[in-house]
């Protein structure tokens, strides 16, 4: 870990940005003078431009939306949900992928063929299309988004884990463990998996940015987090028809989104370069945006 988080400036900035985002997401909605969901005097407060003051004299860093709600406070309330879904969705996908990949590699035969055929079929459908179809079949909401992100994002990790395990399986220490009488599943859990998990961690890190982007996309299209609960995607959607007259309503929430995804992507890139070197055989799969 020391080597990863050493004096590298990009890593330092990215970590600082994420920490700041997390702190703001925790404290800004707590310290806000008004309930970020409540609608007050709409005519006096609505559509204040960034850095402007409303009719009551209150100052708004990023302005207000069409109902007079402070955009910065709402953006940070949305950050809680978007960050949680980004991390949660990516971890869920990684857990499913690790399990599927490990079972496929360890059991082989029909399990392997079925799991990999399913992964191939799912990968042939663009992930956004798959997400849209799944999200439309169930009632939109936080849980649906999480489950759907997990169900459509596990294939990459599964493939990586599978090929890593197939490589590790042939190493002498695995044979030694078997020879010493360690049970079949103990060998997988204690000896093989820990040696195969590295690339999957990189994929999961890069997956967080992807999950945040996909959640915002679903919410933007009305199939993700539903208003009045704010998420970055549905806040951008909420300002969509004001883009010509009050563009900050749609564009401001995007700043937090871009900073977060940028920071996660930079961290993931560094992690990949450190763990795998420049000529990572799986680099292409990891760099792909779905």
């Amino acid at each position, binding site marked *: 870990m020391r080597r990863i988080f050493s004096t590298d400036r990009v890593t330092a900035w990215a970590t600082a940005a994420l920490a700041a985002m997390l702190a703001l997401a925790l404290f800004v909605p707590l310290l806000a003078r008004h309930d970020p969901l409540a609608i007050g005097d709409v005519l006096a407060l609505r559509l204040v431009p960034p850095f402007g003051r409303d009719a009551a004299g209150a100052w708004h860093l990023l302005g207000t939306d069409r109902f007079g709600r402070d955009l910065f406070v709402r953006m940070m309330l949305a950050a809680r949900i978007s960050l949680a879904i980004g991390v949660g969705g990516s971890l869920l996908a990684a857990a499913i992928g690790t399990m599927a990949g490990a079972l496929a590699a360890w059991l082989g035969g029909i399990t392997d063929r079925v799991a990999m055929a399913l992964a191939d079929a799912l990968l042939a459908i663009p992930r956004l299309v798959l997400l849209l179809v799944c999200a439309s079949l169930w009632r939109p909401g936080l849980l649906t988004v999480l489950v759907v992100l997990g169900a459509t994002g596990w294939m990459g990790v599964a493939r990586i884990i599978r090929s890593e395990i197939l490589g590790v399986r042939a190493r002498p220490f695995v044979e030694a463990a078997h020879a010493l009488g360690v049970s079949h599943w103990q060998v997988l859990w204690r000896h093989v998996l820990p040696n195969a998990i590295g690339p999957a961690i990189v994929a999961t890190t890069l997956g967080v940015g992807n999950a945040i982007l996909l959640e915002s996309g679903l919410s933007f299209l009305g199939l993700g987090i539903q208003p009045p609960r704010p998420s970055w995607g549905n806040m951008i959607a909420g300002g969509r028809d004001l883009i010509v007259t009050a563009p900050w309503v749609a564009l401001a929430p995007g700043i937090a989104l*871009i900073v977060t995804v940028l920071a996660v992507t930079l961290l993931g890139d560094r992690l990949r370069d450190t763990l795998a070197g420049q000529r990572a055989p799986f680099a292409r799969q990891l760099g792909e945006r779905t």
Partner: protein
Amino acid sequence: MQNEWSAVARRVADALVLFWLVVTLIFVLIRMAPGDPAEFLVPPTATAGDAARLRAELGLDRPLAIQYARWAGAVVRGDLGESFSTRRPVSRLLLDAAPVSAALGGISLLLTFLIGVPLGMFQAAHRGRALDRLTTLFTTTVYAAPTFWIALALVAVFTYGAATLGLPQAMRLPAFGIRTPGSALYGWAGFIDLARHAVLPVATLAAVGAAGIARYSRSAVADVLTEGWVGSARAKGARPSRVYGAHVLRNITPQLVVLGALSLPGLVAGSVFVESVFSWPGLGRAMLVAIQGRDYPVVMGATVFYAAAVIFANFAADLALPLLDPRRASLPA
């Protein structure tokens, strides 16, 4: 020769099996959804008898195996069913929308490579220096931004921004639609009108795509630059434009072809958002409308269509690769 054709045949078989898997998967997905499709198809005033009649009409009262066989058989014949809402054949509906998406995606993909590859080369050539760091930060930021945000930001710049700065009318671009509503422009004027409407959607898709391609080309070119023959080419006096334009480009071409096929899903995703933001009557928008209206035959049809495109692109890239790599005389088994 014999060997090559059997390898091609195997690839075709693989692609067909994969397509069949996808068709099955889509069927299972739709059937896994809670609720009876007939329930929300009938108007709220319908009686139980109406729902039963509709169920029989759609074949929803038959065993699942029969339903599956029917759906798979129809897809093979190119019949994707009938739209619930418009009663038009789904294949017609998709084919009507496809040219808009194909033109939008095709032009954007071309621009993506024309911008992304030279940009990546430029970054690799200046690797680690200020110019590289600055442009890499820029491409990574664009890569991190959602497509719909970039689209809206461009709209804001060319409408709100242009108006605020008092720019002339010619600098303001139309933000929505594919043609000026109510206008009957033909010939040259019509083309100009269409082109002006296309600037922002194409720019959005090309920017997002080029950022990704530049990210990839930068590392691919940096790898190639470490090879000994780059030094030899320089030593014999080849100009940089020839080293990069001929030697380096030729060496990363196979990777770019694979990348082109792999970028199709991203392009599809991008076009869904772009068509939604700019109200372009393409496939992505048709699918969104169908999803909002629970028009399942259209949703399933569009999904099959997209999957077929992805499978075909990967198949084509697989076949093209050996032709591009002089070291590989034939397809690997």
